[in-house]
Each structure stands twice: as structure tokens, then as C-alpha cells.
């Protein structure tokens, strides 16, 4: 809001101290440590079924297999799909059962 008039500066200097509107935030879980290397590891895919994920996941899979000959990739078709399904604890159980050591989630999920 620029002062576009020739009004005198009334009231002198002003300091506004205001509350932060974002509110506090509690970190209750830390992100999992990263893998040193993808060779010999099991990487799993979780898809929300949207935004061309059948194409993008397949392509990512091919690119990873080219770089890491020993990587094991479990496709998203082996897991529940959709925004609500991939949110569930039961989906995490499936990831654990299948030995997933890392997960690629998409798209915009």
C-alpha cells in the first residue's frame, strides 16, 4: 500500500508486532534414512492412479534398471492404488511384507 498522496506522516514511526498465523507444528516422525546405493535393493512403487502414472512409473522403472542392474523393482500394480488406499496403514503393511526398502510415490500423490 504505497502512500500516493502528499499527506504529512501522521503519528510518527510505528512498530507492528504481530502473531504468526501459521500455527505450531509437531514433528512426530523423522524421515527414513536414505540408501547408500540402489544395487541389490528392493524399490517399490505406490500410485494414486492419476496423472499418467501408468506411463511415468514404467518409464522410471526402465531407467533405474538400466543404471542399477541388481535393483529389484516391485511395480505399483502389486499394491493398493488410489490416493485414499495408499494413505492407509494396511498399505504400509504390504510394503513391509514385500521387503520394500524404499518407495517411489506418485503422481502428485
Amino acid at each position, binding site marked *: *500500500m*504505497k*502512500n500516493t498522496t502528499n499527506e504529512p*506522516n*501522521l*503519528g*510518527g*514511526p*510505528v*512498530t*507492528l*508486532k*504481530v*502473531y*504468526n*498465523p*501459521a*500455527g*505450531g*507444528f*509437531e*514433528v*512426530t*516422525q*523423522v*524421515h527414513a534414512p*536414505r*540408501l*547408500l*546405493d*540402489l544395487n541389490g535393493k528392493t*524399490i517399490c512403487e505406490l500410485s494414486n492412479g492419476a*496423472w*499418467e502414472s501408468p*506411463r*511415468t512409473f514404467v*518409464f*522410471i522403472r526402465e*531407467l*533405474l534398471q538400466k*543404471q542399477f542392474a541388481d535393483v529389484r523393482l516391485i511395480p505399483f500394480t502389486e499394491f493398493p*492404488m*488410489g*490416493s*485414499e*488406499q495408499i494413505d492407509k496403514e494396511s498399505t504400509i503393511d504390504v510394503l513391509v511384507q514385500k521387503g520394500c526398502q*524404499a518407495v*517411489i510415490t506418485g*503422481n*502428485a*500423490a
Partner: protein
Amino acid sequence: MAFAGFGFSAEAAKYAFPIKIFLPGSDLGPIEQNIDKIIDGLTKWKPKAEKKRIEIPPGLTVEGKDYREAMGKMNLLFQKNRWSDGLPILPPTEEYVNWLLTGTGLPRDTVIGKILPRYGIATIEVIATAAAMAGCRPEYMPVLITALEAILDPQVYHQHMQTSTGDAYPAVIVNGPIAKQIRLNSGYGCLGPSSVYPAGASIGRAIRFLLMNVGGAVPGEGAMALYGGPARYTGLVFAEDEDGLPSDWKPLNVERGFAPGSNTVTVLATSGTTSVWEGAALEEKGVLHSLYDFAGYMGVPSGGYFAAVFNPQGAPGILLVGPTTAQGFSKLGWSKEKVKTHLWENTKLAESEWLRKILEYYSVRRQLSVKDYVQYPMPIAASPKNMMIVVAGGKQSGHSYWLQVHGGTFGPVTRTIALPANWETLLRKAEEELGPAPTR
């Protein structure tokens, strides 16, 4: 942002590609060119937060050579931090927030809930901060706090409303004497701006600030609504016109099990705001014309209805009917229940390939069997009781309003409003400042 909803810090090992590659038939070349970024996300990425903790953001200080300059700088700062809706904001100073806190008996550090997708913590103080930004008064606080509680109820499933590509906002309907006391509109222009009834706009704007700033529903970031919708500025916060109800029509909150005359808030996540042009209700022919008109607007194949069909408590939306129209219906023998049944019967959707496919899609998402739940023609709600009708609006007949439910959400929630011990004092002070509350 989505990770924050699970208690992780609001950061993620992610790579954002240009949206065009996510369209049908797109060139996926950018993925190949950036595959190293994906690999880095699995191997090298390090989060800033490496242990569990509570993060409280600090307050802010803005200086100006005068009040105008300071206000301008504050508004720019809030815009840059994505805490703004683009309109001028009032400064949430300690003085203003403390004044607003006189409108509740709850301690300022009371946690009302966490708002997804960011999972920010909404304390009474944070709610008062949003209320200050929106220009609220202390007597609005009981409605605002209760509305947020209702929004965070699992039945509303607010996380979908927050992040959906659909354009969703909470409709907040107030019953009870508090509506008139705080100057909340139930009559002419109740969904729009008013100097005589300013409460709805301020409360609705405060709700939007909470959903956006605490919950992270920033357009294009946490909130993917393609259009957003004009109701995202000040929401849909209004009162039922209980004086205008026919004697045999129960108020919304009484239908939902609350005591007559009690102060309540009912919330439903809605997606549409449609003006319905219907005929007068002076004779049976006019009533039927109106009802078929309503049904025509309501009974369209909409993805928003199917959550209602799969959920016994779901509602397809809220039909607002003016008091004169409602009185006309009642005089001609149309009880609220009879109207609801008529609408339920006449809004059923014929079987079609599109309908079958959309139901299959939702049945997969919710792991429900379409065959078990749906018969054709398909009703837009589980039963006539699930149809919501609220009497509100100007006195003349001639128009009604349809607020269609947002798809994917669960259903309406009603909560009792708790008043602080100093309520009468607050109302007296409001009357001293604003004059007597309108009696309608």
C-alpha cells in the same frame, strides 16, 4: 505437504516435473533427463528435521514511518509468506488477539486440532490470530471455534476438501439465538456481503485463513483446486431463519437431534453454489412446479453424490428455501419430510455407462461393492432423511439456492456451541459499539 499430515516435517524427497508431462500422450523426456534427481531422493537427500520436536514459528515485527506504511509492509510480508488471500488484512497484534480471546473461556494454548495437509496445530491463540486478520469481533469466537471443530471431525474428511482438484469449501449453518446476537445473516443476501450482518464474512474469512495458513491449503501447493471458487474468500457462513420456519418444519439442528433453541453449528463440505429460479408456492400447482424445478437442478449426474450413496450419513447438498416459499409449502400440506421424500424420488439418476463407470471407480477407492449398495435409478442420497433443507434467504418467493456436496467427503456434522461465562457482557459491549442487534 502431504508428509506433514503424517507428522513428518513439511519437506520431502521429491522432484516436481512440469505439469505438461503428466498429460495424455506427453513427452516423458524430462523424466529421463532428471532421473538422477529421483535417484538422489532415494540416496542422498537429507531432511532439515532430524529429530522429533514441536516447532513454534516466531512472531513478526514490521516497522513503518507511520501506520499506513507499517500496514502496507505487513500486508506485503503476509503475501510473500503466502498467508494472504489477496485482500487487505488487519494486523493480528497482541492487543487485538487478546481482545478476541475475551470471546472464549478456553485457555489460549488449548489445542482444537491439527489441520491437514500441513498438520499445523490450531490452538485458541492461532484461531484468534486468524480471526484478527479477518476483522472478527470477540462474540464471533464461539461460532468460529465450533465451526473449526466440526470441520476437523472425521465425518467431514476435511483433508479431501483441502487438497482436492475439486473446488470445495465448508458451508457453516448456525442455529439458535446466537445467530441474531452476533449479527449473522439468515435473510436477504445471507450468502453475500452485508454491513448490517457482518459476522458471516469475517468468520468465513477466518476459517479460510486457518485452512490455508495452518492447514497448508495454499492454491497450487497444498490445495489443488482447479478454480478455487469465490466462496473460498469468505466462505458460506449463515444462519437458518428459525422465525421464518413453518410451525411444522423443524430447524436443521433439531432434525439432527439437538434441543430446540440450542446454539449449534452444522458443517458440510460443498462444491457448488447454484441459484434456483422456482415458482411461487401459492397453490399446489406452484408447489409441484417448484419441486420439479429443484429436482432438475439437484438430479444431475455428479461425481459428488456417490460418496453420499456409499455413506449412510452422507448428504447430497443443502437446499436453501426462502421463508415465504417454506410457509407456502406447509400451508398446502407439504411437510419438510414430504418435500424431502418427493425430492429424493425425483432426483434419482438413470442407469448409464457413465454412472456405472464412476461408481466402479468409487467402489475401488472405498473398497465397496457397487452391487450391494446401488439400485437403478440411483438415488442421490441413502434415504430421504439425508436430504438437507434449510430455510434462509429473503422474504419473497421466486428463488432458492442449491449448495451441492463436495465429492469424496463423508457427511455433515453438527456441534453445540459453548458460550463463555462473560457472554452477556460481550453482547452489551457489542450493542454499545454497534447499536442494537437487528431483530428482523
